[in-house]
C-alpha cells in the first residue's frame, strides 16, 4: 500500500502490485517448475535453515496456492534471458516473464491495517552468543525444526551436527522486558505460552528421554485455559521451570558444541548446567517497514511503534476510517488477534452501514427442468491435471472404461477440468447430450467440488447431481511408483462414483426466513458495545438486564491502565444506549424461556410480574462475572481488609485515611490459580499496580507492598510494573504452599494489620505492619448453568461459557446464532471486553443482515413411519437439531430442525430403527458405491 487519500467513507487507496511472473489463472501448483529450477535460494520461511528455489511458494499452506518467481535470484532476470527452465517445463503454460509492476487505485470506504509483527533479532545481544554459537537458536527457528514441512522434516535435531539433543533450554524475555539498546521495555505476551508449547511438543517428538528447561522471570499464562496447560506441562509432561534469568551462554568446553549455563537458583544457589541446544524466546516487534507505512498513511504510533489506540475504541487508529487489528496494536496471541479482526470488521460495517449491498450483484441461474431427472444419463469427465494424474494414471483408458459403465452416455478427458474453457465444455455437453448426472474424476472435492456444482448449475442442473471421484490426492499422488495399479484404482473409484451418481436426487436449497432483531443478554460494557454496533447498523436490538441499571462491572473502572477516564466513558456509553432509537433496554428483566434457532428465536422474558415474548434472530451473551468474596486473610472480619476497588473508593470518599496511612499491602491471586480454581483472573495484576501507582503518586512516603506469585502485566502493561518499582513499591513473591498470614495487631495504640511472609530473595520472614490490605480476588462466573442449558451452549469447568474454538471461533458457539463476549467468556480487562463485544456484533450482524438464511440442505430426514420415539437421536445430536414432537394419537416422533442440522449423520447412526437417512448420503447411495467397489 502506497497511500490513502480522502476521508472515512470515501478513500482512494494506491496499491503497488509486484509482478509474480506466473499467470495466476493458469498455474495449477503442480510444482514442476520448482523441481526444474536450477537456482537455490536461502529459504526465509524456514528461517534460513533450508533452501528453496527461485520459483517457489512461500509455504505449503499458502493461499492462493500459486507459484511466484523471485526476480532477485532468478537466472532469467540476473543474466538477461537465460535459463527459462520453468517456462519450458510448465505443463499449464503459466510462466509469463513479461509481467510488469501494476499500480491500482482502489475506491474503498474504510481500511484495516493488520500488518503483523517481526520477531526480535538477537544478533546484537552478545551475552547469548546468537550467531557465534551454532546451537543457540531463536524460537522461530525451533518452530521450523519441529515442523514436518521444516528443514529436518520434523526430526528434532540441532544445527551444529544434526544430532538429536538430549537437553534443551529455553530463555525467556529475549529482547523483551529489557532496557538494553535495541530491546523493548514491553512484555511480548506470547512467549511464555509458545515456549511451553515448544517444550511439550519437543518432548512428544523425542519420546521420554528429552530434558527440557524453561528459564523465566514471571510465568505469564493469563489467557483462558493457559494456566492449566502450564500446570500440565510441569506436573504431567515434566517440563522443568526454572525461575532465573541467565547471565550469559558459553561453550561447554574446547571442541564441544554443547552450551554451559550458569544461573542463580530461586533459593540463591549458583548452579551450572550443560545443554545441547538453547532456544531464545525472542519477542515481537514492529518492523521498520511498518513504521514507515504508518508514517506515509498518517497513522500515529506509540513509542514502541505500535498503532496508538484508545482502550474504548481499541481497533480505531488515529485516522478516522482506518482501523487496526492484531500485533500492529500491541503484542498479542491468536485468539485476541482473531477477535480484533472481527472487531475491526464491525467498526467498518458501522461506518459503511448506509452503503451496505450497494455494490453487490446477484447471480442468476437457468431454471431446472425436473422431467430431465427421470432416467439417469451420466456424463463422466476424467482429468489429466497436467501430468499430476496423467503422468501416472492412464487417463484415456479410464475414460474408455467409464463409457462401459451403466447409465453413462457421455465421456471426455481434459488436460485441466477446472480451467474456464473446460467449464464451458461441460455445460455444452450437459445440454447437447441431455445429461442429468455429472461425475468428475480429478483432484479432490475438498477444493473443487463447489466449482463443479456451480458449473452444472449454470448448465441447468441441480448442484446435488454432481459426484466427485478423487483420483489425484487419493490415487495418482500416493501410488506414483505403481502406475498400472493406480489406473485400476482410478477405474474402481470412477465405477463407485457412477454407481452413486445414478441414485442422486435433486435437493432443493433450504432457505429460512430471517429476523433482523438482536437480543443482548447483559447490560454491562460488553453488552452495550455489542448492542450499539448492531443498532448503528440499523438493526433493532434488545438489551435484557437482570439488574435495575446499566453499567455492570465497568462502573468500578475509574481509570483504564492507560489513564483514560472510565466513568466518563461509561456515562457516555449509557447515554448513547438509552438515546438510541434502535435499542430497547429491558431492566430488572429475566429470561424464562428460549426457543427457536438461528434467524428465528423466541424468548420469553419476565419483568416483575409482566411477561413478554421477544422475537429475534441472534443472541449475544454478555452476562459478565463477579469478584470472589474470600474467606481468608480476615476479609469480612476486619474492616481494614478490602478487595478490588474498595480501598480506592475508601480513599476517594475519605482522603484523610490515605493521608494518615503509613503502609498498604496488596495480596494477588486470592482464590485464583489454586487447585479449586486453577485459572488466572488476568487483570488483577494490572489493577493492583494501577492503584499502587496512584497511591504512591499522591503520597510518596507511603509504604506499599505487593504480595504476588507472578506479575502478569502482559504486553504494554509492563510499563505499569516498571513505574511501580521506580516509585518504590516493594514486590514480595509468595508461593502457594507458603501463603502470607494476616493478623490483627496494634502499633503505638493504632490498629494495624500484621502480614507475615517469607522474602523470596533473603529467605527470611518479613513482618509487614500495614494500615490496609487490599485483596485481588478471583473473578468468578455468575453461575449460568440454567441459561446455558436453555440455549444448549456449553460452560467450561470454571463456569465460563465455552466458545466453539479457542483460536478460530472465539466468540461463536457450535450452535449457530449465539455469541459470547466480555467476562462471561473469561476474566479480561475492559479494552479486551470491548474488542470481544465488537467481534460478537460483527459475527451477529453477518447473520442478521441477510433476508434469509441459506442452510446446507444435506440434512437428516426422519421416516416417521419407522420411528418409535425412543429419543436416542435427540440425546446424541451435538447441535440440538433433532427433537421429539408429540404426534396426535402416536406418541412421540423424531423431527429434524434443518436450520440447526450440520449433516454429520450421528443421529442416523444412532437410530435403532434405521428411520433416519441423510440427504445426499442416503444408505442406498452409499451401499451402491460399496457394492460397485467390490465388483471389479
Amino acid at each position, binding site marked *: 500500500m502506497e497511500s490513502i487519500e480522502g476521508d472515512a467513507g470515501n478513500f482512494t487507496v494506491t496499491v503497488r502490485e509486484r509482478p509474480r511472473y506466473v499467470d495466476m489463472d493458469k498455474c495449477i501448483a503442480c510444482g514442476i517448475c520448482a523441481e526444474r529450477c536450477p537456482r537455490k535460494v536461502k529459504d526465509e520461511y524456514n528461517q534460513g535453515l533450508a533452501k528453496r528455489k527461485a520459483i517457489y511458494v512461500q509455504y505449503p499452506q499458502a493461499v492462493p496456492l500459486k507459484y511466484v518467481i523471485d526476480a532477485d535470484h532468478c537466472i532469467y532476470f540476473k543474466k538477461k534471458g537465460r535459463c527459462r527452465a520453468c517456462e519450458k517445463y510448465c505443463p499449464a503454460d503459466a510462466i509469463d516473464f513479461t509481467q510488469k509492476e501494476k499500480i491500482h487505485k482502489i475506491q474503498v470506504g474504510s481500511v484495516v491495517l493488520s500488518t503483523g509483527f517481526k520477531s526480535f533479532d538477537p544478533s546484537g545481544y552478545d*551475552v547469548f552468543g546468537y550467531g557465534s554459537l551454532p546451537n543457540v537458536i531463536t524460537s522461530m527457528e525451533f518452530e521450523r525444526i519441529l515442523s514436518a514441512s521444516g528443514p529436518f522434516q520434523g526430526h528434532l535435531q540441532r544445527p551444529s551436527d544434526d544430532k538429536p539433543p538430549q537437553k534443551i533450554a529455553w530463555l525467556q*524475555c529475549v529482547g523483551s*522486558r*529489557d*532496557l*538494553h539498546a535495541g*530491546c523493548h521495555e514491553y512484555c511480548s505476551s506470547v512467549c511464555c505460552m509458545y515456549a511451553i508449547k515448544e517444550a511439550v511438543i519437543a518432548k512428544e517428538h523425542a519420546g521420554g528421554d528429552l530434558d527440557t528447561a524453561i528459564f523465566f*522471570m514471571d510465568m505469564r499464562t493469563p489467557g483462558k485455559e493457559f494456566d492449566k496447560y502450564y500446570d500440565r506441562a510441569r506436573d504431567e509432561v515434566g517440563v522443568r521451570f526454572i525461575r*532465573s*534469568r*541467565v*547471565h*550469559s551462554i558459553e561453550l561447554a568446553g574446547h571442541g564441544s558444541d554443547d552450551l554451559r549455563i*550458569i*544461573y*542463580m*537458583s530461586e533459593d*540463591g544457589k*549458583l548452579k551450572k548446567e550443560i545443554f545441547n541446544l538453547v532456544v531464545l524466546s525472542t519477542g515481537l516487534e514492529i518492523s521498520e517497514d511498518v513504521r514507515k507505512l504508518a508514517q506515509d498513511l498518517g497513522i500515529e504510533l506509540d513509542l514502541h511503534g505500535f498503532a496508538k489506540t484508545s482502550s474504548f475504541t481499541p481497533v480505531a487508529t488515529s485516522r478516522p476510517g482506518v482501523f487496526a487489528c492484531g500485533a500492529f496494536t500491541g503484542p498479542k496471541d491468536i485468539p485476541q488477534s482473531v477477535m480484533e479482526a472481527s472487531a475491526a470488521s464491525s467498526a467498518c460495517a458501522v461506518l459503511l452501514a448506509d452503503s451496505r449491498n450497494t455494490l453487490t450483484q446477484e447471480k442468476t441461474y437457468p431454471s431446472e427442468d425436473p422431467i430431465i431427472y427421470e432416467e439417469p444419463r451420466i456424463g463422466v469427465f476424467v482429468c489429466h491435471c497436467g501430468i499430476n494424474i496423467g503422468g501416472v494414471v492412464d487417463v484415456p483408458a479410464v475414460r474408455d472404461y467409464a463409457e462401459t459403465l451403466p447409465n453413462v452416455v457421455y465421456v471426455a478427458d481434459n488436460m485441466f477440468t477446472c480451467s474456464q474453457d473446460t467449464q464451458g465444455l461441460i455445460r455444452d455437453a450437459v445440454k447437447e447430450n441431455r445429461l442429468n448426472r455429472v461425475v468428475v474424476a480429478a483432484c479432490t472435492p475438498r477444493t473443487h467440488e463447489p466449482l463443479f456444482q456451480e458449473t452444472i448449475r449454470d448448465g441447468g442442473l441441480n448442484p446435488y447431481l454432481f459426484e466427485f471421484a478423487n483420483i489425484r490426492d487419493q490415487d495418482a499422488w500416493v501410488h506414483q511408483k505403481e502406475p498400472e495399479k493406480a489406473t485400476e484404482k482410478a477405474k474402481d473409484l470412477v465405477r463407485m462414483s457412477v454407481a452413486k451418481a445414478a441414485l442422486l436426487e435433486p435437493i432443493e436449497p433450504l432457505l429460512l426466513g430471517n429476523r433482523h432483531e438482536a437480543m443482548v443478554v447483559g447490560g454491562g460494557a460488553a453488552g452495550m458495545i455489542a448492542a450499539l454496533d448492531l443498532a448503528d447498523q440499523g438493526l433493532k436490538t434488545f438489551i435484557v438486564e437482570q439488574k435495575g441499571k446499566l453499567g455492570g462491572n465497568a462502573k468500578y473502572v475509574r481509570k483504564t491502565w492507560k489513564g483514560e477516564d472510565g466513568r466518563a466513558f461509561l456515562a457516555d456509553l449509557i447515554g448513547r444506549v438509552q438515546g438510541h432509537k434502535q435499542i430497547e433496554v429491558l431492566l430488572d428483566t429475566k429470561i424464562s424461556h428460549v426457543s427457536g434457532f438461528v434467524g428465528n428465536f423466541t424468548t420469553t422474558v419476565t419483568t416483575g410480574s409482566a411477561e413478554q415474548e421477544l422475537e429475534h434472530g441472534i443472541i449475544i451473551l454478555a452476562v459478565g462475572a463477579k469478584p470472589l468474596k474470600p474467606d481468608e486473610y480476615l476479609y469480612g472480619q476486619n474492616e481494614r481488609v478490602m478487595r478490588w476497588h474498595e480501598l480506592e473508593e475508601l480513599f476517594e470518599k475519605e482522603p484523610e485515611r490515605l493521608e494518615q496511612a*503509613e*503502609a498498604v499491602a496488596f495480596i494477588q491471586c486470592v482464590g485464583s490459580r489454586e487447585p479449586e480454581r486453577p485459572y488466572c483472573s488476568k487483570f488483577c495484576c494490572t489493577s493492583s499496580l494501577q492503584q499502587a501507582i496512584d497511591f504512591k503518586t499522591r503520597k510518596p*512516603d*507511603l*509504604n506499599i*507492598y505487593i504480595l504476588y506469585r507472578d506479575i502478569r502485566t502482559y504486553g504494554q502493561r509492563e510499563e505499569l510494573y*516498571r513505574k511501580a*518499582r*521506580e*516509585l*518504590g513499591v*516493594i*514486590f514480595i*513473591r509468595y508461593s502457594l504452599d507458603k501463603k502470607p498470614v494476616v493478623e490483627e495487631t496494634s*502499633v503505638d495504640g493504632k490498629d*494495624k494489620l500484621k502480614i*507475615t511472609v517469607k*522474602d*523470596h*530473595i*533473603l529467605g*527470611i*520472614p*518479613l*513482618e*509487614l*505492619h*500495614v494500615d490496609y490490605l487490599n485483596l485481588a480476588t478471583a473473578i468468578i462466573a455468575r453461575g449460568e448453568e440454567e441459561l446455558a442449558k436453555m440455549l444448549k451452549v456449553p460452560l467450561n469447568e470454571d463456569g465460563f461459557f465455552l466458545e466453539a474454538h479457542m483460536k478460530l471461533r472465539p466468540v461463536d458457539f457450535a450452535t449457530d446464532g449465539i455469541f459470547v463476549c466480555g467476562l462471561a467468556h473469561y476474566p479480561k480487562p475492559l479494552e479486551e471486553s470491548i474488542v470481544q463485544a465488537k467481534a460478537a456484533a460483527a459475527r451477529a450482524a453477518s447473520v442478521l443482515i441477510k433476508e434469509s438464511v441459506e442452510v446446507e440442505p444435506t440434512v437428516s430426514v426422519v421416516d416417521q413411519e419407522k420411528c418409535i420415539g425412543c429419543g436416542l437421536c435427540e440425546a446424541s445430536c451435538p447441535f440440538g437439531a433433532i427433537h421429539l414432537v408429540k404426534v396426535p394419537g402416536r406418541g412421540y416422533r423424531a423431527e429434524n430442525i434443518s436450520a440447526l442440522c450440520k449433516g454429520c449423520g450421528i443421529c442416523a447412526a444412532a437410530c435403532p430403527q434405521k428411520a433416519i437417512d441423510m440427504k445426499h448420503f442416503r444408505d442406498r447411495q452409499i451401499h451402491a458405491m460399496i457394492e460397485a467397489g467390490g465388483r471389479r
Partner: protein
Amino acid sequence: MAEEAIKLGGKRKSVFIDKVKKLLPEGGNLNLCLTCGTCSAGCPATGLEGMDPRKFLRMAALGLDEEVINTPWIWMCTMCYRCVYACPMKIDIPALVYAARASWPREKRPKGLVGSCDMALRNMSHSAMGTPPEDFTFVVEDVLEEYRETQPEFKDMEAPIDKKGAHFFLNQNSREPVTEPDEMVPLWKILHIVGADWTYASKGWAAENYCMFLADDDSWKKIIETSVDAAKELGCKVFLNTE
C-alpha cells in the same frame, strides 16, 4: 544477619538506597530490580560472605541499611560491571557498593587498599608501589637499552618519556617496572612495529588507582588529575589506558 523476622511498614525514613539514587544519573535504576538473578549468576564475588549482588540490592531495597553498609562483601566486589552489563534493567549495583564503601571511616577500610592508596599519594608517579618518577625513568631507559643491544631487530625501538606532541599517552601498571621490568617490552615492540607515536609521562604514569577501589573520592580525583594534566601538557591526542 539475624534470622528473626524483619519488621517493615512504619513511617518511611530516608534510607541509604534513596540517598545513593540521588547521586546517580537515572537513580542508577536502583529501584527497578526484577529479582531475576542475572547479576548474581555473572558475579565473581557471588557466594562470598554468604552474599551476592541480588541479595545485596534486595537488602538495600528493604531498608536494611546497617547490614548493607557493614557487610565485608562490599570490599570483594571487583567493580567489573558484569552485573550491569547483563542486567535487563541496567541497575548500577557497583555504584551502590561504592557508596557503601564510602560510608566506612577511612581507617576501618581494608588495610591493603588503604596502604596502596596512601603509597600512591607519596609522590607524583601515583604508583601503588611508591616508585618515584626518577626511578621509573631509570628503569625504562635501562630496559630499553638492554633490548636495543641484545635484539638488533629492535635497535631503533623507543620508549619515550615526556615526549612532547606524541599522539598516544600511555600509562603503565606499577608492578612491572619494579618486579618484572621485561613485561613492559612486548607492548613497546608492538607499538614499534606498527609505528605508533607514543610516550610515557614521568608524572602520573601509574595506571592503577587503588584510591578508587578504596572509595576515597578526593585521592582518586587527585591521581586522575595528575595523569590528565600530564597528557594535556605533552599535547597528546589519545589517552591509552592499559589497566
